[in-house]
């Protein structure tokens, strides 16, 4: 029997919008509605909602280069990707090798894991 309705904190999010670092709680009421508590500004609430429902990150790493002036090219996703997909994306990047020369902004992997994001070069890289 569901006698007592429960209100529970499902996640604590530390806000990184400013150095105050508010602890924002995502709270579930008996109707499964989520509300947020502890934020002190609008940007904080927006951050907490994004972090709760769909946390995303820009991924920055390197890709192996053949014939390059240096052996690696620094790369990033051109938009944030789902935090849950970071590892899988890193595995794809780890298996990739590209050829020099490369220009900053060149797309090295298109639409990685159907995320809608491309992996792009962070710098120019000449041949040896």
């Amino acid at each position, binding site marked *: 029997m569901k006698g007592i309705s429960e209100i529970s904190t499902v996640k604590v999010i530390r806000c*990184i919008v400013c*150095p105050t670092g508010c602890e924002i709680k995502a709270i579930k009421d008996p109707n499964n509605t989520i509300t947020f508590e502890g934020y002190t500004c609008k940007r904080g609430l927006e951050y907490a909602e994004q972090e709760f429902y769909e946390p995303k990150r820009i991924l920055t790493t*390197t890709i192996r280069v053949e014939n390059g002036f240096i052996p690696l090219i620094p790369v*990033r996703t051109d938009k944030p990707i789902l935090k849950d997909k970071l590892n899988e994306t890193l595995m794809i990047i780890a298996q990739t090798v590209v050829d020099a020369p490369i220009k900053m902004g060149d797309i090295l992997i298109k639409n990685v894991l159907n995320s809608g994001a491309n992996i792009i070069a962070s710098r120019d890289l000449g041949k040896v």
Partner: protein
Amino acid sequence: MKSYKADVLVIGAGAAGLAAAIEVKKAGLKVLIIERDKELGGITLQCIHNGFGLKEFEEELTGPEYAQRFINQVLDLKIPYILDTMVIEITRDKKIYAVNNKEGLIEVSAKAIILAMGCREKTRGAINIPGFRPAGIYTAGQAQRFVNIEGYLPGNTYVILGSGDIGMIMARRLTWEGCTVKAVVEIQPYVSGLLRNQVQCLEDYDIPLITSYTVTKIHGRDRIQGVSIAKVSKDYDRIIGSERFIECDTLLLSVGLIPENELTLQAGATLSNNGGPLVDNNLETTIEGIFACGNVLQVHDLVDMVTSEAKRAGKNVVDYIQNRYDKPIKKEEKIKCVAGENINYLKPNNVNKSDIDSKIIFNFRVTYPDRRVIIQFRDENNKVIFKRKKVYVIPSEMVELEVNLKEIGVETTIKEIRIEIIPRPEVLIEED
């Protein structure tokens, strides 16, 4: 011996050197850059994470992207540069000697010099960790270069000492490369880098942050096999009995940066307590015609701030060459700037009296964190001449203040400005 001539010589092609050189070149002067690495760009090239450029370009870039934008300007402006070349001496009459493996010893004569050599990391020697000297101990930036540029992993299982931003960013970077980071150990009771990095580099990957602890022993003879960590008291003394062992094959040190000023000293310039040269409000050192900017002057939090300081140095050097060089030295009267309560260091170290009716940029760091404070300027008679409220101050965030001294009522008879951080009296608190 091959010799070069320029109006302005810039030493170092990192963020500071590139921005300063561009500024000088745009004014039509002849500038030359000398860089010890094999390419232009400096340390931002190995900082492949994002978070750069929000102030300078109003968009979020990675370190290499930030560097590339300045490299492209240097190339477009056809600014000459010499790579793979180490400056070994600046004489007091501004002759510069450098070496490289193509030309051997070279000599540069310049009317003015911009010091932009950046900073270096503190090493194990600087913090005296006992134990053997096995392989596997690196500074965080050194490991960053191995992983992001050279393509090597320094080890498999890591302990990182120091919660500075580079240390935390390396914790995430190594995790992404398949390594295990056992812990980030911080001697202070609080994290020393940005909160954003604590959340996104450590908490996202469940990497423990152990505060009020330090590494007390390094185990292993050939390769490091682990470290002992111990809790420290408020005075940073080790608490006996609190030791515990963490197994690891690599220890990274992220324990602070020091401005790199061997050349500055050699030129005869005076250094101040932060390790950077003593400068006036024009960023000119105690040697006329030698200016400093970027991390060689003071270690900045953001590269964007290095860039704006370097542009300022560039402009001031142009002014020096156009208006002061080759003219009889005018003895400038100076106002001394002194660090008071809760100021670790400040820049500039003095202000020219002739500049009191212009915007002076003051930079400083506090010694300890505080909330709801007043930044206060006093003169040599303890009279308060300036006050500004601030919600919080922390050692990891450099404070920047722009003040026109004349507008706040400073007279040229003043001898000294003492800057201090004091608690706000109760009555003022409601106004936040």
